[in-house]
């Protein structure tokens, strides 16, 4: 706990120019305390406001001056009241002096802690810095700021300044703004301070670090370029996912009267034998088994330790390669950063030389890392340069884990150029797409980049902590809708979209999207639904992209019916289809009706040849597919009904063509013997004479 401890003074500008953004400041500050209540219960927080009507601070009582600075809250361990205080920050009436407020905040920290708790004391300034600070009694403003910065360094105080600018700022004198920026920059240069500018409420929420986590190195040691040269480095995590808190299972078994009930649930796992499901296997009889195909190979821990892959702690360079060989999407995990050992000038220079050379030549380094002795596996990753823009900060290298051969999924997808012409965008459509991509710009020149990851808060976590606070007061409170500021993260910015209405409309018009009614939505289908409350302007984008796991097959056109143009070919195609047994019977019956039609509609017999041709094909098909009965029945049917209309002549014609029943010899399933088949037409001859 103590390592993570933080003593924080919030120095907040509440002057009139800040009023518009104060609701966001309230949100982020109360969230900060809420998180502290969960994770750092013993942290202390104080609040200093400036730009207030009143004046209330110790310094003004002791030495005078420091007007319009109010200590709203002296240093105290975080509690629920503090959250409430921060939710209702009083609005001020004058334009305050941020330097006075910083001094008051610093004074609070020094009075209570002196030089102890180094590096854990933090000042957090939120201001728009639009108004000039007072002229000091002696020296220049710069000197004064430098003196304060030195004091901060001496007492181990860190400072974060968040300067709110952009659309919230009123028109201010540029000169004052520049002067203030310059002064605040002195802090960043001279002491452990950071300054960020924010332009939107969303990025304000992200700009203030609401949870302090003491960084821990995951490796300290040599970066071995080879056995000849080694560079001392420390490795930290650069990104690490802040997880949704794990909530405990709740037990309602404890009686209501029990004030000290923990309501916790213990979970017990019992392993039962496969042969006797009622018997519990005690831990000493259990042994780890690994799957190998359908088999499970048991292996004891001791055995495993003897044979498993062993590693030595080390970070070794494998070589350099061109940056384009490492595609961005191969980065596997959260990112680490390699920093030269602090205070070691030579290492700092060596890392700097590598980083700068990489940048210049567009190269990256491939390294093999074992962070800890005996770690289960090695990691192969890529080092990319991180050239520092601040004087006080050394150059460093980013480290990203690369996949092994086993980790890569190689799937093949058809080239876009091989897709049907219908799916190829026309020139006109391409133009609309170009405009669309150009105009929906989230990083316009000279303005803040919208939704920069570094300043974007996690909407889910924000919502959870806020709701937690609400529930602590009203246990039955329903989950409120997503805050408007946070909606900017999950939904398109209405301003941006309305500014580019014409581009979007064109884009919308030139592409045709139709919902495929045949397909019901499956789970794997990522179909964007129209947000119910959204206005028309957002309806431009309804791409259904499928997250695909397998190659998309372009189906060939399949014959489903015997047509008029090429009945023979259709029949053969259908007969040879194997995706369903139905096709054969469909083909056969289709062919039969074709033949019937031909005979019936043939007045002079000129289409008999064609009918015979079809009949032959049908017979052959029935032999191949072992369906003699169908053909034989059909032929009998034809013979028995010949008296009708002109079937008579057709049957004579058939007999002369020697098309008979399918015999046993031809198809094993046939009930017709060889003789019967031969006699088939003979039998009918007398009949025909009778007629």
């Amino acid at each position: 706990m103590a390592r993570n401890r933080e003593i924080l003074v919030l120095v907040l500008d509440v002057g009139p120019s800040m009023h518009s953004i104060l609701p966001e400041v309230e949100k982020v500050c109360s969230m900060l305390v809420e998180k502290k209540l969960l994770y750092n219960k013993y942290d202390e927080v104080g609040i200093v406001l400036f730009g207030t009507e009143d004046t209330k601070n110790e310094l003004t009582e002791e030495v005078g001056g420091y007007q319009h600075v109010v200590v709203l809250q002296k240093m105290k361990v975080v509690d629920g009241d503090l959250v409430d205080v921060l939710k209702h920050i009083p609005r001020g009436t004058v334009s305050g002096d941020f330097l006075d407020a910083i001094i008051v905040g610093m004074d609070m920290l020094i009075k209570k802690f002196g030089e102890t708790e180094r590096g854990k004391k933090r000042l957090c300034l939120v201001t728009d810095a639009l108004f000039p600070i007072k002229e000091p009694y002696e020296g220049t403003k710069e000197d004064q700021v430098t003196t304060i910065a030195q004091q901060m360094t001496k007492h181990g105080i860190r400072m974060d300044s968040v300067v709110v600018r952009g659309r919230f700022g009123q028109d201010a004198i540029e000169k004052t703004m520049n002067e203030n920026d310059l002064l605040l920059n002195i802090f960043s240069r001279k002491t452990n301070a950071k300054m960020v500018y924010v332009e939107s409420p969303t990025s304000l929420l992200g700009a203030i670090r609401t949870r302090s986590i003491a960084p821990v190195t995951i490796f300290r040691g040599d970066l071995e370029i080879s056995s000849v040269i080694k560079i001392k480095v420390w490795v930290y995590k650069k990104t690490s996912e802040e997880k949704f808190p794990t909530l405990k299972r709740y037990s309602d078994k404890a009686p209501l009267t029990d004030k000290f009930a923990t309501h916790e649930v213990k979970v017990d796992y019992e392993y039962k034998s496969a042969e006797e499901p009622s018997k519990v296997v005690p831990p000493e009889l259990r042994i780890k088994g690994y799957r190998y195909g359908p088999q499970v190979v048991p292996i004891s821990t001791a055995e495993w330790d003897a044979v498993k892959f062993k590693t030595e702690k080390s970070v070794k360079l494998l070589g350099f390669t061109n940056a384009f060989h490492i595609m961005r999407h191969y980065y596997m995990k959260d990112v680490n950063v390699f920093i030269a050992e602090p205070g070691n000038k030579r290492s700092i220079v060596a890392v700097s030389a590598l980083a700068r050379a990489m940048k210049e030549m567009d190269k990256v380094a491939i390294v093999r890392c074992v962070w800890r002795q005996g770690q289960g596996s090695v990691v192969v990753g890529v080092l990319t340069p991180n050239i520092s823009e601040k004087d006080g900060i050394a150059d460093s290298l980013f480290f990203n884990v690369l996949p092994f051969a086993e980790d890569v999924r190689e799937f093949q997808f058809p080239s876009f150029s091989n897709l049907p012409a219908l799916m190829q965008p026309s020139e006109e459509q391409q133009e609309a797409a170009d405009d669309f991509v150009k105009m929906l710009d989230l990083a316009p020149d000279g303005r803040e980049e919208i939704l920069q990851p570094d300043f974007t808060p996690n909407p889910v976590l924000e919502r959870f902590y806020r709701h937690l606070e609400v529930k602590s007061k009203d246990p039955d409170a329903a989950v409120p809708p997503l805050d408007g500021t946070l909606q900017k993260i999950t939904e398109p910015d209405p301003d941006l979209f309305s500014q580019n209405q014409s581009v979007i409309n064109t884009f919308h018009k030139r592409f045709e999207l139709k919902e495929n009614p045949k397909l019901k939505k499956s789970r794997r289908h990522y179909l964007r639904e129209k947000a119910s409350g959204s206005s028309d302007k957002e309806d431009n984008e309804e791409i259904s992209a499928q997250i695909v796991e397998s190659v998309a097959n372009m189906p060939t056109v399949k014959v489903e019916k015997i047509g008029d143009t090429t009945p023979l070919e259709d029949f053969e195609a259908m007969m040879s289809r194997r995706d369903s047994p139905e096709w054969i019977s469909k083909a056969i019956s289709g062919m039969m009706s074709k033949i019937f039609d031909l005979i019936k509609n043939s007045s002079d017999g000129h289409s008999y040849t064609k009918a015979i041709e079809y009949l032959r094909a049908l017979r052959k098909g029935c032999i191949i597919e072992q369906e003699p009965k169908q053909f034989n029945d059909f032929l009998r049917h034809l013979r028995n009904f010949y008296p009708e209309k002109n079937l008579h002549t057709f049957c004579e014609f058939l007999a002369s063509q020697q098309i008979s029943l399918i015999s046993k010899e031809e198809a094993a399933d046939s009930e017709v013997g060889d003789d019967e088949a031969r006699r088939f037409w003979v039998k009918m001859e007398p009949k025909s004479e009778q007629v």
Partner: protein
Amino acid sequence: MDLDPDEVFRDDDDDPDNPFFQEDKKEETHFQVALSCISQSLKTQIINRSYDEVAICFFNTREKKNLQDLNGVFVLNVPEREDLDRPTARLLKTIDGIEEVFMKEIGSQYGIVSGSRENALYNALWAAQALLRKGSAKTLDKRILLFTNEDDPFGSIKGATKFDLIRTTLQRAKDAQDLGISIELFPLSCPNEQFNLSLFYADLVGLEGGDLVQYLPSAGDRFFMFQYEGPTERSFICADTGALFLEPSKRFQLYKNQVIKFSGEELSEIKRVSAGHLQLLGFKPLSCLKDYHNLRPSTFLYPSDEGMSGSTCIFIALHRSMVKLNRFAVAFFGSPSRPQLVALVAQDEIITAAGQVEPPGMNMLYLPYADDIRHVEELHPNPDIAPRATDDQVKKAAALMKRIDLKDFSVCQFANPALQRHYAVLQALALEEDEMPEVNDETVPDEEGMARPGVVKTLEEFKLSVYGENYEEEEAGKGKVSEVSKKRKAISETASQKCKEYDWADLADNGKLKELSVVELKYYLTAHDLPVSGKKEALISRILSHMGK
């Protein structure tokens, strides 16, 4: 592991006809090549996709063994396994040893000769298709992999019979394809004789033009699977009363000393922050995507017209625009587990002689939030200006990069040594081999290469440039008296001095150790290199046991 319920049915056909056994110049017959290929892919499969089922069937064999009793077809199998089943260790072992017994037990014989109407290829396809009967093609991926070195199986036959044989065989293949079975051909050609696809097989596998099926062993993610024999049972016990109950529906979080309860629905409602699944927010230049904007492996997107016709067209248009303008899309991915911002980076198709290296589409990269990013570089600020490399030093580093250049580096060229070792050991145990196999660790740096005089010279130059001349000695000197060790040394010195001021044996004998303070006790412990942790009693007992009392 996946959302994808597909299994890959695989069927390997093998063609040990006579020229198959003719030795290649590389001392490996085609038969051996095919066998080792099968063995390798089975070994990968048993690890990665052990639920896939496989059958192995040889054709043009002397003996026959198959359900339909067809001539010239031999389905290889081992006991306790159906013909088409998941691969087992025993099967692998049999395949590895099949070569020695092949001639004796199965034998090879060229099946398609003039005069007989036997058609081994036809029979093989039929047998394979019959093997692949189980399961629906809708949910499964069924494949026949055909290994052969005979590009013209009906070459020795003339006239109408040949035509007929070809027609029936093609029909057989088409039947299989209609049933959703894909046929992939692995032609093995002799060095002096190119395998001519157009003679027969192009029609069989339905190739257009000169496309060759690429052999791509696709591998899944790493996953160590271990399981306990038998079922497990979970029971929930109330910590307060000890009562047993069913899975609790509510969760809680302790906050301000209050128990705040959440129902499951409430939690998922909190996490539901967006309506759509993937919501486009806008575009940014690629330079905005930093190297540290990464959390998880990326996901690949490919368009589909299945649900919404016209989608592919828009996707392609946007893809082209993004590639052309060097921009990526920012979108919100509303997955129920972790909704987050994603970057969609258009990836152009990359094709080399070996086939498609990168498919066309978009890669979805998961972006971190502000809460996930740490500013660790700024943790140790230098008081004034941090040292920077001079131009000369950068130049030396650049020279080094030119020297140690991995020319054709590919991200997936290394096999994971730990995983390889893991499965090699498993395999050895499963197959009851006596010796543990050695696994080559491909990730070790090339020591020899690094020791080449040219490389060493560049390294030395770089070192001299950044470290100066007396680095070695200074470093060695520094190592001895680093800040921490200096401090530690000082402590232990004072401790041993102070330690001498007490008569420990006497104190211990008279039971007076209790009267000393913890600080005093620690003098003894530090002086004797003992741990100083624990309560006073623990310290005393540690001292006593050290003194042998």
